[in-house]
């Protein structure tokens, strides 16, 4: 299946993926309206150190520890995409405890949030991929 792959060789550390992610999941149709004067809380995060940078977001594991560990059944995997039902999630953070890549984080609404490959928002395909200026993030079959 198509996954998000990251190649740190091409990551510029520009952080645009974070902004495009935050915008895509804001539910707003204008980036300025969505992101002006806020501290963004994106589902993809850049790690940076000594001139190396890369984006990290959910790997959509085939054997997802987060889904198996979820105490509410809010995290499910369907067609390879792991998504969260924030209605069911109580914010216990067992998934944060479980995810080996640190790709699940608290959401501003109390539950948790994670990359859902933009399947639930208006994007249709991952906004971080579209927004990456250097193809450091790709959404491909590999």
């Amino acid at each position, binding site marked *: 299946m198509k996954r998000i792959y990251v190649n*740190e060789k091409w990551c510029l550390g520009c952080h645009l993926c974070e902004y495009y992610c935050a915008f895509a999941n804001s539910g707003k149709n204008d980036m300025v309206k969505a992101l002006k004067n806020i501290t963004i809380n994106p589902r993809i995060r850049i790690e940076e150190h000594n001139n190396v940078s890369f984006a990290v977001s959910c790997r959509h594991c085939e054997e997802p520890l987060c889904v198996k560990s979820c105490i509410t059944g809010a995290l499910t995997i369907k067609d390879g995409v792991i998504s969260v039902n924030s209605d069911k999630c*109580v914010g216990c953070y067992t998934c944060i405890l479980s995810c080996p890549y640190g790709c699940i984080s608290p959401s501003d609404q109390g539950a948790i949030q994670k990359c859902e490959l933009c399947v639930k928002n208006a994007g249709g395909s991952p906004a971080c991929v579209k927004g990456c200026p250097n193809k450091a993030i790709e959404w491909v079959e590999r």
Partner: protein
Amino acid sequence: MNYVIIGNSAAAIGCVEGIRQVDKKGKITIISDEPHHTYSRPLISYLLLGKTDEERMKYRSDSFYEDKNVTAMLGVTVTKIDTDKRCVELEGEKPVKYDRLLVATGSRAFIPPMEGLDTVDKKFTFMKLDDAKALEDAINENSRVLIIGAGLIGLKCAEGINDRVQSIEVVDLADRILPSILDETGSAMVQKHIEDNGIKFTLSDSVAQFDKNTATLKSGKVIEFDVLVIAVGVRPNTQLVAQAGGAVNRGIVTDDRCRTTLKNIYSAGDCTESLDITTGQERILALLPNAYMQGETAGIDMAGGQKLYDKAMPMNAIGFFGLHIITAGSYNGEAAVIQSGNSYKKLVTADDTLIGYIMIGDVARAGIYTALIREKKPLSSIDFDLIKEKPQLMAFSKRERAKTLGGLR
């Protein structure tokens, strides 16, 4: 193949999903003495807190049994396992045959003998949905609640009802709260936070005598209360296996494929013992994620697939009044402590591996630490200084990142 599962919680569901990964057709029967659709027990405190409701507490969707082609016999009690006839005997129903059986009977609240307990009118345990509902019915804004036990269950219960009662007092024999998962510093931090939310603690003490609405402690302290919650511990439900001749220590003995010592009988969840990789000892790891994964492993093995349950360890994600705590592993090793502001972090290492950690407050990306423990990652192969600062993939080698993030095989 005819699969029978005793139990209807995480281990049972894991087992169903495990079986169905391998065997789409075999007959599966779930038998549970609880009459409810599968639900998540740890959510009962969130139920009282109003963060969830009975509908949303369902661990799987309403159509789960149908989707997975499972016959659910709910509200039915198993009385005996007959290994000769390969069937389970039921209370008031005909026996059910099995080819493979999973015992996922879980645990029950432990109520120690206490003087005068029978004089207490409103006394509860806090394990099951029915416990929570009963407790909810019993409390009101004028209730004074006494909770015996400052462990995970007692404190979650306290948080759950705090806004709905007049006062809560927690009594524990131990000298600090959550001793099973926190160190002293951590306990003190969390205790302070809980106290700040109006809950009182009496530690290093225990009830000597109940008399209706009064508890007299060993220290002589007297506590008046309206509702009593007993949360001193749990005991695994091992009787069925023990009766059938299976090996049982504190919990049901299982191997890394979740088999009991009885032929064709598996066991998973809170009723079992499993190997804690951080200590090398068999112990009960009564945690929902572990239960699910044991159940899944059992299910796969029952259906002829291959899977091992060999990475178990204690781990907890819990929070009280907005303060989050994540812990994993064991703490007998060299500790590195980082404390800043409202956050506390302790990493415990031994033999070039991380064996345990505590994070309080800032718990972001804790799973990266969990994975270090689970995979027994040699710390010399990563940049430990970097990862000590905060959990990050930057600490791994380029090549490892290319594998995890770049799809390199």
